[in-house]
């Protein structure tokens, strides 16, 4: 018995111990309802236990009945206690949750607002208020549209209207007028709040400022557009050298699409012009973090080579590690071609000047050699040994004169007499000679173009050019073959110029000479027009044939374009500009017998040897000759002997006073005075151009005795 009493006392003490914290803050902890239940439960327990103590200690038996009834309430009280505690707990959790979310909503930097179905603001968090510079009270019932620029209203309405029962949440970006009137971009996520029956009751909107992102996007878009539309190819490589990105220009230059390029290394496209050491040095430079710039020859997709000017820079991340390389590539194939052509043209011009200068000086010497040879031959009898020696000298002099003439043709310093010509007619006139020249083992075809345009060229030069090319073709076809001469009209337009930079747009007559000979090696193509360049064995070719053709074509404002394949043949295309005139029939000069005279001729020549020779030739023909060593002396002599001088023969280029000035002064003294120019094909064509321009007669040095005497006679016999 005592044991049970002791246990019950423990129970009572425990219950009393429970009261202490409940008295202190039971209401706050449990809530009012639960506290009342606990109080009832504690009371019942105490009553029941005390009753038991009294009963088991034998002090009382009267409380048994009450105890029995109260005991029935204890499970009920526990039920209520559990029930009220759970309710209080749920309410506390909800309150806590609400508090937490309210705190989050208020403390966040994200803009949060609630709108009713008319888009009037019903809630705005602190960030929203700060962003728009208004208090929550000012924002209440304010239309959300009043915060948005009018230009964006339509887009916002469209975004809202897209919300449906199935898709109640939509995101869209628009601008809003921030604090201070600044228009900034935001991204809003609006969630429609619907009633149970599906009616719209409002919106919950969450927004964030994306102005900086928009600006970054705009900047990025600008960079991408600039990169994609740049004329230069831009290639981005990864740290390993594989292509990561290429722009549109890259495809234009190389022919490779981005899909074909990405993942490849640029070495795949190398043209084979450089060895491995070149590429190794290039990559070493880049891997050391340095810039590399230079020219590279790469291969296009179609296999053709193109020259690139590349500038490659390493791209580093924030830690300084190289993460990419960016290459800016410019196709300079066209410029390189032009530069090569310019260099070639300059070289030809320089060689031409050299050749022309040498030829000019040689002319005076040859004039003397040939002239005195002729005079000596006239004085010697054929039976004399010296006659044969002088004849050899004369023959060599003639050959030298021919070479000099070719050099002058190449250097474009020949005095020419261009006339309007029908090229077909010129070729027809030469065909017989060409057939004889090339031999029977070569088949000759001439396809004359219909309605061929008129060209303004020197007929003799054109014939020479044609014959030179035919001879060249003949020499390339030892075993026989076919030589074809074609003419036609061509229009060189800007498209043609794009692919043939040497050309100028316009209408041209094309002369095409094709043979089926051995062809020309590719590495020799640049040299074929250089004087004294020949592939023929020593002694078989002068190396001036094609150089002469080149000079003639250039002097007549045309172009010559060679094309050759070794073993198949060679084609020369000559483009000559057309003129809008009909070709005239040119009378070929018919040489008559040389006649001397008794008239007096003033000869002005600065080269003493040439002066002496000229005087001797004229005197031997019966003329009286007065001489002058320069222009001023010529004028002086004329003044002294004006009455008896019938003709003035002057060199165009003389010291002190030029030929043209001498003639002008003489004509002042005696209008209508007959005069004649001679020239050693001046190194500067300007000196002789006035002769051509005024339709005057000019004797070209070195001249033969007959040529001089015939010209003098013709001048004297003019009416």
């Amino acid at each position: 018995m005592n044991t049970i009493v002791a246990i019950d006392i423990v129970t009572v003490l425990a219950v009393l111990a429970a009261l202490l914290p409940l008295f202190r803050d039971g209401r706050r902890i449990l809530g009012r309802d639960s506290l009342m239940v606990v109080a009832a439960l504690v009371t019942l327990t105490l009553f029941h236990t005390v009753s038991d103590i009294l009963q088991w200690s034998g002090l009382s038996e009267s409380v048994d009945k009450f105890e029995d009834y109260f005991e029935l309430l204890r499970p009920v009280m526990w039920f209520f206690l559990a029930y009220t505690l759970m309710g209080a707990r749920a309410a506390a959790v909800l309150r806590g949750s609400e508090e937490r979310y309210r705190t989050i909503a208020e403390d966040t930097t994200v803009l949060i607002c609630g709108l009713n179905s008319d888009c009037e603001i019903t809630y705005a968090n602190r960030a929203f208020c700060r962003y728009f510079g208004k208090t929550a009270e000012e924002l209440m019932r304010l239309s959300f549209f009043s915060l948005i620029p009018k230009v964006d209203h339509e887009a916002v309405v469209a975004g809202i209207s897209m919300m449906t029962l199935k898709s109640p949440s939509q995101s869209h970006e628009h601008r809003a007028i921030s604090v201070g009137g600044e228009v900034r971009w935001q991204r809003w996520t609006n969630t429609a709040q619907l009633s149970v029956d599906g009616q719209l009751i409002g919106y919950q909107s969450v927004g964030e400022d994306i102005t900086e992102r928009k600006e970054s996007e705009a900047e990025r878009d600008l960079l991408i557009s600039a990169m994609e539309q740049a004329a230069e190819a831009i290639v981005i490589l990864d740290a390993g050298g594989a292509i990561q990105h290429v722009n549109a220009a890259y495809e234009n230059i190389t022919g490779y699409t981005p899909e074909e390029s990405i993942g490849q290394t640029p070495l795949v496209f190398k043209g084979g012009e450089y060895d491995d050491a070149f590429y190794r040095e290039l990559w070493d430079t880049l891997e050391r973090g340095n810039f590399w710039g230079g020219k590279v020859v790469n291969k296009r997709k179609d296999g053709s080579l193109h020259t690139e000017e590349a500038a490659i820079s390493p791209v580093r991340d924030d830690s300084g590690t190289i993460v990419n390389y960016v290459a800016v590539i410019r196709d300079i194939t066209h410029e390189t071609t032009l530069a090569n052509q310019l260099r070639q043209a300059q070289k030809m011009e320089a060689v031409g000047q050299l050749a022309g200068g040498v030829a000019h000086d040689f002319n005076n010497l040859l004039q003397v050699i040939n002239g005195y040879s002729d005079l000596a031959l006239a004085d010697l009898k054929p039976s004399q040994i010296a006659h044969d020696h002088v004849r050899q000298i004369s023959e060599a002099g003639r050959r030298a004169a021919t070479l000099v003439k070719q050099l002058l043709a190449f250097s474009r310093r020949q005095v020419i007499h261009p006339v309007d010509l029908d090229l077909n007619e010129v070729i027809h006139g030469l065909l017989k000679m060409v057939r004889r020249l090339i031999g029977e083992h070569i088949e000759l075809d001439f396809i004359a173009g219909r309605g061929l345009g008129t060209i303004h060229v020197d007929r003799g030069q054109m014939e020479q050019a044609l014959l030179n090319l035919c001879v060249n073709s003949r020499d390339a076809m030892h075993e026989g073959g076919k030589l074809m001469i074609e003419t036609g009209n061509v229009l060189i337009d800007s498209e043609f110029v794009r692919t043939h930079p040497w050309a100028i747009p316009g209408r041209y007559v094309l002369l095409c000479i094709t043979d089926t000979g051995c062809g020309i090696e590719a590495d020799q193509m640049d040299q074929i027009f250089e004087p004294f360049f020949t592939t023929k064995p020593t002694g078989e070719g002068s190396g001036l044939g094609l150089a002469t053709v080149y000079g003639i074509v250039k002097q007549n404002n045309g172009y010559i374009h060679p094309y050759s394949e070794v073993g198949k043949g060679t084609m020369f295309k000559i483009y000559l500009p057309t003129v809008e005139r009909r070709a005239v029939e040119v009378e070929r000069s018919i040489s008559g017998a040389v006649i001397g005279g008794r008239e007096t001729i003033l000869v002005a020549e600065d080269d003493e040897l040439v002066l002496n020779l000229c005087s001797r030739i004229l005197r031997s023909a019966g003329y009286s000759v007065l001489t002058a060593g320069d222009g001023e002396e010529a004028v002086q002599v004329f003044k002294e002997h004006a009455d008896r001088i019938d003709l003035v023969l002057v060199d165009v280029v003389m010291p002190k006073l030029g030929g043209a000035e001498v003639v002008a002064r003489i004509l002042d003294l005696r209008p209508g005075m007959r005069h004649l120019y001679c020239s050693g094909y001046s190194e500067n064509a300007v000196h002789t151009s006035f002769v051509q321009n005024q339709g005057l007669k000019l004797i070209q040095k070195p001249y033969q005795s007959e040529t001089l005497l015939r010209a003098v006679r013709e001048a004297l016999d003019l009416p």
Partner: protein
Amino acid sequence: MILQNELVTLILGLAALAFFVVGRARIKNLPRWRLFLLAFAALSAAWVLTVAEGFFLPTALNLIEHICYAVSSIAFALWCWRISSDHQESTK
């Protein structure tokens, strides 16, 4: 011998227990729920023993019944103290 009030108490207790079982998920949300449940379980055991002692081992089962009352009261007192101290800590 079965007393009528003891049987009714047991039935009510079992009904309360059924409520505890059904709502155990929510019971688990209560602070210090294990002590709370222990207090109720000990009380329920006492109610069962009260009925059982009418059939066999009356003395022993009666003793255990009172021990269960004591355990229930101690567990309940501990529960009160613990939730009080938890509350005080959370408000510091």
